[in-house]
């Protein structure tokens, strides 16, 4: 178990290293460099810019800047926003809850519906339901999330008036119910793609388990189909899904970015776009690293959980 953990941990660190180098190089490619935003200010002279450059250490070689930046990152100093000077970690922290709320609720929806569709598709293989689920999943994977969001707003907010068209809560009304009311539409929109992916994998996993010997044994014992499904199949089929949940995180984050844009949801995705618009380079870089760490961490947790539950993986 220890060797397994160390192995996965070192892999994760290498991943973070690669991501940080790519991100750092990319953002330094911006014409005018990280200070492009200050160059637009007419009261800034070239002397001021040079002084600022000196101050921020931007005239040093790129590799030295990288090492310095990475060392401070490890120590928890992620720099300050160019916009208002707030520490980057604080800025991210302020937007984190909104994103986690959106991602969490949509994941719950996706897993619940996806699991149900997947199991039903596997137990009623080649039925009309299975066929529709297969085609539906392919269509769902093809719909741009932002467009689905716009159509959702058009139908449920503008035409029917059932759900709010955006924001996290009504100003002056911070009740839990009001939050939930605002959460419904964006989480369903974000969940669509993942319902599709989850149901496909769940169907495959269930089919794999159904053909195993212990299910035949359970049948031979005379257990009812329902009992076999609940006691023997579902649990085993869900096991590989833990890994999938970790692997899906990048795509959930991508979906969250556009969903937050469409629904003016005050999360990390909107923060990223705003910061990019302002060339707020430290926040952009901070968010790049933060999302990478989040992804790596979740994958690591998923691997560990699977290894704890299933000794076969740990030992192989």
């Amino acid at each position, binding site marked *: 178990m220890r060797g397994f953990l160390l192995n996965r941990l070192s*892999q994760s660190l*290498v*991943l973070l290293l*690669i*991501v940080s180098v*790519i*991100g750092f190089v*990319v*953002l330094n*490619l*911006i*014409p005018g460099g990280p200070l492009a935003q200050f160059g637009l200010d007419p009261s800034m002279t070239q002397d001021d810019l040079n002084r600022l450059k000196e101050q921020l250490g931007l005239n040093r070689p790129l590799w030295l800047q990288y090492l310095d930046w990475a060392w401070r990152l490890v120590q928890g100093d992620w720099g300050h926003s160019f916009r208002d000077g707030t520490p980057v970690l604080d800025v991210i922290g302020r937007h984190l809850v909104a994103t986690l709320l959106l991602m969490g609720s949509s994941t719950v929806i996706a897993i619940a519906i996806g699991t149900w569709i997947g199991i039903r598709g596997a137990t009623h293989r080649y039925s009309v339901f299975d066929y529709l689920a*297969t*085609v539906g*999943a*392919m*269509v769902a*994977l*093809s*719909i*741009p*999330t*932002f*467009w689905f969001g*716009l*159509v959702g*707003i*058009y139908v449920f907010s*503008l035409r029917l008036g059932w759900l709010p068209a955006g924001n996290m809560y009504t100003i002056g009304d911070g009740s839990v119910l009001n939050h939930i009311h605002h959460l419904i539409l964006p989480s369903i929109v974000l969940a669509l793609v993942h319902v599709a*992916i989850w149901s*496909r*994998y769940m*169907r*495959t996993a269930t089919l794999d388990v159904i053909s195993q010997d212990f299910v035949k044994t359970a049948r031979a014992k005379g257990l009812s189909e329902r009992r076999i499904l609940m006691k023997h199949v579902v649990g085993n089929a869900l096991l590989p899904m833990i890994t999938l949940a970790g*692997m899906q*995180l*990048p*795509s959930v*984050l*991508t979906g969250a*970015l*556009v969903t937050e*844009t*469409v629904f003016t949801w005050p999360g990390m995705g909107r923060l*990223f*776009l705003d910061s*990019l618009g302002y*060339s707020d380079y430290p926040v*952009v870089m901070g*968010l*790049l690293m933060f*999302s*990478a760490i989040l*992804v*790596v961490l979740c*994958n690591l947790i998923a691997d560990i959980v699977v290894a704890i539950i299933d000794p076969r993986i740990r030992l192989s």
Partner: protein
Amino acid sequence: MTAIVANSRQERWWNSRTAHRFMNHHLALIGMVMIAVLTLACVLGPYLLPYDSLYIDLRARFAPPLTGHHYLGTDPLGRDLAARLFMAGRISLLVGFSAMLLSTLIGTLVGVLAGYRGGWLGTTLMRTVDGFLSFPSIFLVLALSAALKPSPMMITVVIAATSWMEVARIVEAEVRSLREREFVQAGRMLGLSGTHIMFREILPNAIGPIIVAATLTVARAILMEAYISFLGYGIQPPLPSWGNMLNGAQQYLGTAPWLAIIPGAAITIAVTSFNFIGDGLRDALDVRGDHG
């Protein structure tokens, strides 16, 4: 001798049974027809419509679909939506297709090299693939597009640079399993160069999975272009693309919903079609899928 073996294997992909299975795949056929119609409309449409995509009809701003000769209505400037949709389709389909070609090329090169050479080179390459895959690439794509000048060419390169990993993974796995086969060993015994074995002997045998992955990559590339153009970092107006047509549509959702609904429907139809075709090819070429 190796040439004969390679040839007989190459034939297997397109023999009548494969073609037959593909033709029996209804979804794939629907996808093919839809893509054909869409491509024809985008190529010929602008010549057949009464309005140019840049003509501003000030008396017919915000016209809903089917007003006069504006079959799909007009946009806030009074430009014909149908004409713009077809011109945008040219850009979106072209970007999607070119990005696929480029990313398939990169992915195949990386995959063949990693799969055949193995060792530390293979490990390093595949770790890089993992790195790219485990990263929400839209962040990187947006940062890149903001950093570079967002011309259609640049967008294509940026999309390709962040979507070659799936192909690389598939090719690597395929090449790794083919590496120990007899015809490869025969090639080695004949003293053929590594490059020759990689690209002339092994690659033709891995073409099925590559075609499937490439088709699905077109779908993903079209979607990615739509995402970044919608967010304002992709194709820049006045050049229309399906994504940037949706860019300003949200503010008119209440008064002119067709501005949002029509381009999005075009994206969905195009992407669904390529996914259907990919699915059909996977069945026809007997490629094991990731899921389903």
